[in-house]
């Protein structure tokens, strides 16, 4: 295994483009090292991206939008004084990952690129409308977070491409988000279902919504039907029932020891309702 510590994304991309065999980027290493140690994936080339300038920066731009460097960890997101006030769902989703020790290393971009359908931060980022800059041999392009995973452990990144920044839109007025997951324990477990909701209200009426489901299909899903069930409503019982039905209908889950197909399908609806209620209360300024 060759270890590289490039000083720029162009150099990182060039190294990856010319590498043969298996290449991995090293952010927090909480997936890469586990896979290496359990001999699931032994990379031929490992490219550590933490020495690139600015990768630890959390920047709030003048228009209220955010850029996070690709080595920003869960702990750094939770400690940021303002990020969690504007995007509590995104920060809480990331904070659910692992223990204090894991939080000190794990990054949302690594969570995304590992390609797990159960990755906790991903539904929250999708609901938030987050995007990433992809740097490759042909230059930079901006891609929506939901377009990165293509299947379990697979992404749309081509050889030589890597993510060089994470962008979260401006929260703007009267908006709120939330992420909830179901796990069989209270801590340190993998989501059986995860739901991210972000919405905006005008008075009591929902004017914008994005709903994303995790762990119920080969990739994290952005579910348009869930958004449609919410927009134009005041989150009354009819809207909540329609949301739950749309969430359950979107599920294409697996059956395993952590949850059956029926269970995951049902829980997706229940969690969608609960997450929507939290996001709605936050949008109306009723809770933090």
């Amino acid at each position, binding site marked *: 295994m060759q270890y590289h510590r490039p000083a720029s994304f162009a150099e990182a991309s060039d190294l990856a483009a010319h590498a043969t065999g298996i290449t991995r980027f090293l952010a927090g290493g909480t997936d890469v090292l586990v896979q290496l140690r359990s001999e699931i994936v032994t990379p031929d080339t490992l490219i550590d991206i933490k020495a690139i300038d600015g990768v630890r920066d959390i920047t709030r731009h003048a228009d209220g939008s955010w850029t996070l460097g690709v080595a920003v*960890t869960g702990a750094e997101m939770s400690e940021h004084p303002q990020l969690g006030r504007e995007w509590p769902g995104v920060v809480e989703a990331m904070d659910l990952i*692992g223990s204090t020790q894991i939080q000190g290393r794990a990054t949302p971009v690594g969570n995304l690129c590992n390609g797990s359908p159960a990755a906790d931060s991903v539904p929250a980022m999708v609901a938030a409308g987050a995007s990433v800059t992809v740097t490759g041999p042909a230059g930079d392009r901006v891609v929506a977070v939901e377009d990165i995973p293509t299947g379990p452990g697979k992404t749309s990144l081509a050889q030589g491409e890597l993510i060089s920044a994470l962008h979260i839109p401006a929260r703007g007025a009267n908006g709120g988000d939330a992420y909830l997951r179901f796990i069989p324990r209270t*801590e340190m477990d993998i989501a059986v279902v995860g739901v991210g909701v972000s919405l905006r209200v005008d008075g009591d009426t929902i004017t914008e919504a994005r709903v994303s489901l995790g762990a119920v299909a080969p990739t994290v899903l952005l579910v348009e039907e869930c958004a449609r069930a919410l927009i134009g409503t005041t989150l009354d019982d009819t809207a909540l029932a329609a949301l739950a039905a749309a969430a359950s209908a979107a599920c294409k889950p697996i059956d395993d020891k952590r949850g059956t197909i029926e269970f995951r399908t049902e829980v997706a609806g229940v969690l969608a309702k609960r997450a929507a209620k939290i996001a709605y209360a936050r949008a109306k300024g009723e809770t933090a």
Partner: protein
Amino acid sequence: MTKHHVTTTVNGDTVEYLCDARETLLDCLRDKLNLTGAKEGCGTGDCGACSVTLDRRLVCSCLVLGVEAEGKQIETIEGMARGETLHPLQRKFIEHAALQCGVCTPGVLVAAKALLEKNPDPTEEEARYWLAGNLCRCTGYDKIIRAVLDTAAELREAS
């Protein structure tokens, strides 16, 4: 296989070692620097027996590569006592009998010290969540939590 030459700081001392890219920081601490306080319980980030701080951030050293330590500041359990004088956490762990076999103890102590540096007055719930990544198969955790909270109280009185 080319070896990497790493210069890093462990418990305030500059140290150097040669390592293979696949070797973890835990392997390097234990096998090259003879700092065997950090233990390997699982090797996959689940048990916390290998806890150290890396640039003051609590991490599992089994999930850090030895090469990543270049130019960093590492603190391990070996740096906790000052000569013969135990750190208050170590003293309280003995007083409260917060250990049995002791395998988890170095990791728990390093993690607890990081907690008290960040939050001198944790609630029981905060302490339990903070230490959720440190598994102990002997004590049932209660004595550990009591020792940590008692240390916090003592340190607050002293300051």
